[in-house]
């Protein structure tokens, strides 16, 4: 097998050193009733050419070269070439978690930059080295709020991504943390009356998303005082990081969670992505996951290391802030390179282009909700069902928006459309045509 760097001669030499005559003696101590003496029922190993070809064939039975108007938590943004040039370096790709600071300053420094940029982007004081993804960051934030407030209830807006809400439920169901959903109004945004009704002294946190699942911006300036008045924490989530290039960040939040997939992470059929969790200064010791801190080395130079490890599972074990071990270092690096390349002005311009594209498209169909939106919006497909519209678009090699009926039965006749800087005007015109104006 070509990845195994030993000749049979070397194997024999090594066995002799150990004092064995054959490799089988290495497993002779295994009880007979556990040994698997058959052959695994798998094909034999194939050549590199065949591997590449296999995946090419699979890709060929996937959509190829289609324009896409899907968003809903995963966004099509251009990936600068520099990103892969950096992450393909073996020193980044194949390095281990930076527990040994002296030989991991590359990783540690870039994570420190990542943490800094996440704070700058979100308006928070501290951020960790990343979470698995946006969806799993939400329950982590909820658990943080429960620890901090010592209350146990969580309220979550229905305008938070449906799958994120599912993950929240699954993760909290056995921790004595009841989760209740908050309605939205006919403007497609959080129903403040419902919030007022459900807030109480038992509520640890209120979770909202902005831009929300329907693409609309929530009014945090109205939501935050209500939440505070009951001593609960405000958790704000986002799925479209590009919005933060232009949108006032959620400074009113106590904890911010989100997804940075938009920053040079391929959609890749659902993962891997990179989540973030950020918070106000005083909550730093309640953050889950890895944290990189600045310090000095023995020669007095600035250096970085993993810090506050006592929060984590490998030390605190059953009392840890979370069981999380891995962070998404390589993807966090992709996002860091992306943020560096675009920079302050670039992220803004990118966001402005997204805004323009989506508003152009929205002008040609009829958005369902009246309110400020970024690069996504809901539109009814009057006369045809969303599936019919998508079928017609597919014939034109266009992937249409997400039919909402599966998540919001009350929006069965509508779809969620997203337009980014990668969508061309002519394709948007086609979508408009297929929609037809009614």
């Amino acid at each position: 097998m070509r990845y195994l760097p030993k000749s049979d001669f070397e194997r024999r030499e090594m066995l002799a050193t150990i004092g064995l005559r054959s490799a089988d003696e290495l497993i002779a101590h295994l009880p007979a009733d556990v040994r698997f003496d058959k052959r695994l029922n798998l094909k034999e190993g194939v050549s590199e050419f065949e591997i590449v070809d296999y995946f090419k064939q699979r890709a060929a039975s996937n959509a190829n070269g289609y324009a896409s108007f899907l968003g809903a938590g995963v966004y099509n943004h251009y990936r600068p070439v520099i990103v892969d040039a950096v992450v393909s370096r073996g020193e980044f790709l194949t390095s281990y978690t930076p527990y040994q600071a002296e030989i991991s300053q590359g990783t540690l420094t870039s994570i420190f930059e990542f943490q800094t940029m996440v704070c700058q982007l979100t308006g928070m004081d501290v951020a960790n080295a990343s979470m698995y993804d946006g969806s799993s960051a939400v329950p982590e934030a909820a658990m943080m709020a429960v620890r901090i407030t010592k209350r146990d209830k969580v309220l979550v807006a229905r305008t938070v991504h449906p799958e994120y809400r599912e993950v929240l439920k699954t993760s909290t169901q056995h921790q004595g943390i009841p989760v209740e959903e908050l309605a939205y109004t006919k403007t497609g945004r959080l129903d403040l009356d419902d919030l007022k009704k459900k807030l109480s002294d038992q509520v640890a946190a209120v979770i909202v998303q902005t831009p929300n699942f329907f693409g609309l911006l929530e009014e945090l300036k109205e939501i935050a005082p209500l939440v505070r008045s009951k001593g609960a924490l405000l958790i704000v989530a986002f799925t479209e990081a590009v919005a933060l290039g232009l949108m006032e960040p959620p400074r009113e939040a106590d904890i911010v969670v989100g997804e940075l997939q938009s920053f040079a992470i391929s959609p890749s059929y659902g993962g891997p992505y990179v989540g973030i969790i950020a918070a106000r200064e005083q909550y730093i010791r309640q953050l889950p996951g890895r944290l990189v801190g600045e310090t000095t080395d023995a020669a007095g130079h600035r250096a970085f290391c993993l810090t506050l490890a006592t929060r984590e599972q490998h030390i605190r074990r059953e009392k840890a802030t979370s069981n999380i071990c891995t962070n998404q270092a390589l993807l966090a690096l992709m996002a860091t390179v992306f943020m560096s390349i675009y920079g302050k002005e670039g992220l803004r311009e990118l966001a402005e282009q997204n805004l323009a594209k989506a508003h152009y498209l929205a002008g040609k169909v009829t958005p369902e909700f009246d309110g400020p939106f970024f690069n996504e919006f809901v539109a009814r497909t009057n006369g045809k069902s969303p599936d019919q519209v998508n079928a017609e678009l597919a014939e034109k090699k266009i992937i249409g928006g997400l039919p909402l009926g599966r998540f919001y039965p009350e929006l069965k006749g509508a779809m969620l459309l997203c337009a980014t800087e990668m969508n061309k005007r002519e394709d948007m015109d086609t979508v408009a045509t297929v929609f037809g104006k009614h």
Partner: protein
Amino acid sequence: MTYPENFKYTKEHEWVLVEGEAGTIGITDHAQSELGDIVFVDLPKPGATITKGQTFGSVESVKAVSDIYSPVSGEVTEINDKLSTAPETLNSDPHGAAWLVKVKLANPAEINELLAAADYQKYIGG
């Protein structure tokens, strides 16, 4: 390091100094030396109730956390604020400036079950 005669000790390496109905609690020199450089101390708030034998906080070094077990039961009247900005005091002066909490004892008789200085010293093999 000598262990003050007027302190009482636990097998979990806490000490308590009782003066009438008031007690002052800390961790022993042995404990701080096992932990290494202390980086953080987690204490309850004034007004909290603590119970003999149960944990009421923790002490952290870079690579370890140690729960603090209460030698007595009572109500926390004061906590040592200095430790939040200078946790290293626990390393340098664990029996003096780095006391953790002061309590109003609920049951002063509890201290009879604790170790005297000589017994604690023997227990840790000193």
